[in-house]
């Protein structure tokens, strides 16, 4: 009887308390991410199990209606990278969702750990180098990691090295100095595929040099700026426009000849 009475009183009082107090909802900002040591303990001391199950969980729940929850993912994926930096799915997802989703620094941090742990894998240093070049414009670090990727790579070594060289070439303002540098690299290259790739790009740069030289001559002769590239042909300064072995071509923007770059939608030159 007493027990019944007490339980009834308890339920009545707690319901009344619930209704009476003003609901001050404290919103938790962002989802909770459990820190790595605690997560390790929760998974029975097995850091591989923790990394695997966390990655599966993040891949499944990190996105809400098609939008990646970047704020949560960037913390949670760092935790997975601490537990098992060698985890392939984690670095791949981090590169895809974080780096290209607005959190470039955090995504790149996961890649850095993966690159250090997976000493046989060419992809993490390649992604890291590319991100460093593209997002942070840090060409020195980019070149270093691309070289690392080339050393680890089997088929792609020439491509990575070509990319590293072209990043440095782009930096050089004077096209003739850039051409010298590129020719030098081409001559020093031992890999035949790399030599071939650099030779094509040297020819392309030679074309640019020729165009700019013709423009300079025109402007010295006519004493006014060049309006259209056709005028060079009309004046006889050039027999024909130079052929681009990469078939990308050149463009004339704001009175200056430039190498035509591939335009990717949403990713413009900064």
């Amino acid at each position: 009887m007493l027990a019944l009475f007490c339980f009834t009183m308890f339920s009545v009082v707690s319901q009344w308390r619930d209704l009476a107090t003003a609901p001050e909802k404290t919103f938790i900002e962002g989802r909770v991410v459990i820190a790595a040591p605690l997560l390790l303990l929760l998974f029975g001391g097995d850091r591989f199990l923790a990394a695997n199950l966390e990655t599966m969980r993040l891949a499944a729940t990190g996105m809400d209606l098609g939008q990646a929850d970047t704020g949560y993912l960037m913390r949670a994926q760092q935790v997975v990278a601490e537990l098992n930096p060698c985890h392939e799915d984690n670095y791949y997802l981090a590169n895809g969702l974080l780096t290209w989703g607005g959190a470039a620094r955090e995504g790149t941090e996961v890649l850095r750990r993966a690159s250090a742990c997976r000493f046989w894998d060419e992809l993490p240093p390649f992604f890291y180098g590319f991100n460093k070049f593209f997002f942070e414009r840090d060409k020195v670090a980019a070149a270093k990691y691309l070289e690392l990727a080339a050393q680890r790579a089997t088929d792609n070594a020439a491509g990575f090295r070509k990319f590293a060289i072209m990043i440095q070439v782009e930096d050089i303002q004077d096209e003739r100095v850039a051409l010298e540098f590129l020719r030098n690299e081409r001559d020093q290259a031992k890999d035949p595929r790399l030599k071939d790739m650099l030779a094509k790009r040297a020819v392309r740069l030679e074309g640019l040099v020729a165009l700019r030289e013709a423009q300079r001559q025109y402007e010295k002769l006519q004493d006014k700026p060049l309006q259209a590239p056709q005028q060079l042909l009309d004046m006889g300064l050039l027999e024909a426009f130079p052929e681009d072995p990469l078939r990308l071509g050149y463009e004339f923007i704001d009175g200056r000849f430039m190498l035509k770059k591939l335009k990717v939608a949403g990713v413009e030159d900064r």
Partner: protein
Amino acid sequence: MHFFRDFLVTLRISLRAKFSWVILCIFLACALGTLLSAYFGGRQPAVVALDVGVSIIRLLMPFLIVMLVQELFFNEFDRRYYLASLTYPRGRCNLLLGRFFAFLWVLIFVLLVVGVLQFGLVVFIDAIYPRSAPAVYGHYYLIVFSFIALDLLVLMALATLLAVVASTPSFVLIGTLGFMLVSRSYGDIVDLLGRDAGLVANSEAYRESLGVLGYLLPDLGALDLRMLVLYGRPEFLPVDWPWLLLSSLGYAVGLLALAVWALQRKRFA
């Protein structure tokens, strides 16, 4: 001679304790875990499958150990079977050690079967989504499983000691699992606290006090060499592996010796 009889006795006790059902459940759990987790591995299904499979083995086998140690040793004292088993002209020490080694062989057999099962499953998964480097490497697989067996040996020795010393049945379970949790994780936690300094206010003090555990408990987390078999690189074998082996074996033998000594001293009411 004695050993063979011990082996049969152990088997009979285990079978009576529904051991075959438990083993089947463990096989099923491993197989399901391995196969299903492969679906969630985006770029590396075979590696994830193997990884999760090994984790399941390392987590479920201690439960099997506790269950059987409970049957083989604890029930001797709890249900007073010693009134029959200790009347034979064999020393107490021989009884304990005989059953222990018989149980060890049973465990190794189970580990072997589940290892082969998993190998088969991972090869099957690898065939569905082949990558440039296959997930499983023959002799590395054996190495990883031998280290897992060593890990389980230490847990068995501890469970035996607890079974001889304890007065409540759940103490064996809690003690063994707690030991497993702490000794597998403290090494990694010390590492993580060192790197992630923002987690606790005074991480150095935490690390030092956790480091003290290194003198008391064996580093079972370091026995987890599965990176060898996941990625197939010999660099993942730690350079000090003989010392690891020696220290863990020493710990197990020490615990067993303690168990024998406790049994010799035990007074039955």
